[in-house]
């Protein structure tokens, strides 16, 4: 019965215009990946300062804002180059449309970057007292306002939350792409930030105490575990929409995105989990750095697949 019904309802497109391919591609992947690092390092640093003495992580105060500054600039640069009219980005500030999460996100990220720049100036000026000499006004002001760093930390932590999660809201507003409509996307962004933040800080943790590094490895392993669990949930569980089902069915059936997805899962989530757990036991710095590198590569691969696959479906 079922077979004959399907047979009778066959429908084939015989004339149509070429349909759109991938609109948001790898540039947006790098954008999201870099933002995860930019906000993630702040979350992880705040946790480490809460748990340990500042002396346990001597370079964290000045290196964390530098990493965040670089990552946020990469994020904003890739946002800019993805625009077809890059010079008109100023319109977001001159003619903001507040229902758009792109607008809200751009404003929040810009404020966040501005404050992070101030933190970087203070952190670097305090860490290197001879930097800039006596004539440099920037280092002079930064050193004079050294306490501002600690004062704005709670606010920065609070601000980092929407800056991390607003991309999930952009995806939610991209209502044509059903796969992104899952509420789990918000948490996925948070786990990605913790994963990327801890992975980035691992590279500067060589001079830290064993306990602080152990905590860093723990954050990485917990973040990759939960992020992996959420990806698996989204990958295997049935969605209510036919578009999301069709998207996943396409990836399940094999092909390049299937390979990229599982490569990302293996490199970025499964392998770093075991490597980080093992590095925690014997404080193996090399192993931990390798886990961090894999996590950063795997996260980019996984984000890339999740970004592109819903765009493969025809919308009309």
């Amino acid at each position, binding site marked *: 019965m079922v077979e004959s019904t399907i047979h009778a*309802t066959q429908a084939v*497109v015989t004339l*149509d215009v070429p349909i759109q391919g991938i609109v948001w591609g790898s540039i947006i992947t790098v954008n999201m990946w870099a933002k995860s690092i930019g906000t993630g390092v702040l979350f992880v640093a705040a946790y480490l300062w809460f748990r340990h003495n500042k002396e346990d992580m001597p370079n964290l105060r000045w290196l964390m804002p530098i990493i965040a500054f670089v990552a946020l600039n990469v994020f904003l640069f890739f946002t800019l180059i993805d625009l*077809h009219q890059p010079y008109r980005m100023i319109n977001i500030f001159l003619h903001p449309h507040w229902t758009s999460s792109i607008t809200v996100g751009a404003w929040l990220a810009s404020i966040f970057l501005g404050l992070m720049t101030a933190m970087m100036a203070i952190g670097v000026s305090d860490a290197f007292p001879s930097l800039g000499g006596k004539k440099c006004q920037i280092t002079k002001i930064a050193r004079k306002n050294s306490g501002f760093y600690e004062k704005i930390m709670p606010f920065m932590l609070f601000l980092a939350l929407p800056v991390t999660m607003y991309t999930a809201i952009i995806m939610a507003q991209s*209502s*044509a*792409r059903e796969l992104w409509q899952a509420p789990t996307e918000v948490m996925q962004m948070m786990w990605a930030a913790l994963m990327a933040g801890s992975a980035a800080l691992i590279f500067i943790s060589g001079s830290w105490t064993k306990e602080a590094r152990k905590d860093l490895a723990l954050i990485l392993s917990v973040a990759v575990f939960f992020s992996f669990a959420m990806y698996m949930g989204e990958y295997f569980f049935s969605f209510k929409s036919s578009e999301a089902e069709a998207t996943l069915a396409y990836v399940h059936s094999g092909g390049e995105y299937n390979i990229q997805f599982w490569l990302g899962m293996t490199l970025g989530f499964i392998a770093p989990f075991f490597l980080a757990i093992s590095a925690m036991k014997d404080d193996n710095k090399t192993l931990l750095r390798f886990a961090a590198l894999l996590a950063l590569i795997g996260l980019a691969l996984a984000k890339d697949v999740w970004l592109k696959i819903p765009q493969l479906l025809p919308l009309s």
Partner: protein
Amino acid sequence: MKLGFLVDLNLCMGCKGCEIACKVENEVPLSSWRLRVKYIDLGTFPDTRRSFTPLRCNHCENAPCERICPVSALHYLENGIVNVDSARCIGCAGCMMACPYGAIYMDPETNTADKCTYCAHRIESGMMPACVVACPVEANIFGDLDDDHSNISLYIMEHKGAVQVRKPEKHTSPTHFYVGGGNQTLNPLAHQRIEGFNLFNDITKLHHVGDKNHGILDRFLAPFGGHESASTNDSLLESKISTESHEQEGGH
């Protein structure tokens, strides 16, 4: 006033007159369409038939494209039309990601988002949209949905129960309706796109967004004029070559 559109698919004969009229009226560039007519073959031989579905912007009352646009380039007019201000558009393509109907494209000449505006410029002058005028069988019905005596309102009332919109589950409240459509014609996942089955056309997917000769660097250099002239010349050259080859093959 709330302007709306209705297409009676029982009347449409797939002549593509509306598609051409739209292209000409709005100077829609190559590889872009504000309105297109899709042919779908239904059934199994010998019980087959061909359906024709004109597809354009749905001018939703709850438009996701208007909501996501960061600079209000997409905005509502007082008559309900979702209009585009291409001078303000930043080309982020957010609207293309938000529109569930795939009705928005990146104009390859201006590198800004564009779409059907129900010919807002013609409406302003008291004229009908170009596609309505061109339709030889009056399958396109256009008018004020708030006016109970308008053609479209009467048509909707007359065909009560048979009037459909695309993807109602998206809650976008389209002001574009269809009569005589079905799941197979209105749901893009209910019909197959088989490579090599397209009449007249082998290109099934666009591999570029906006101008394909307009790379990232060109976007930054464009205001200084370097790329624009080159790109225009390329397009002209391409069109000249294609015209010549077309004429050599006996075309006009």
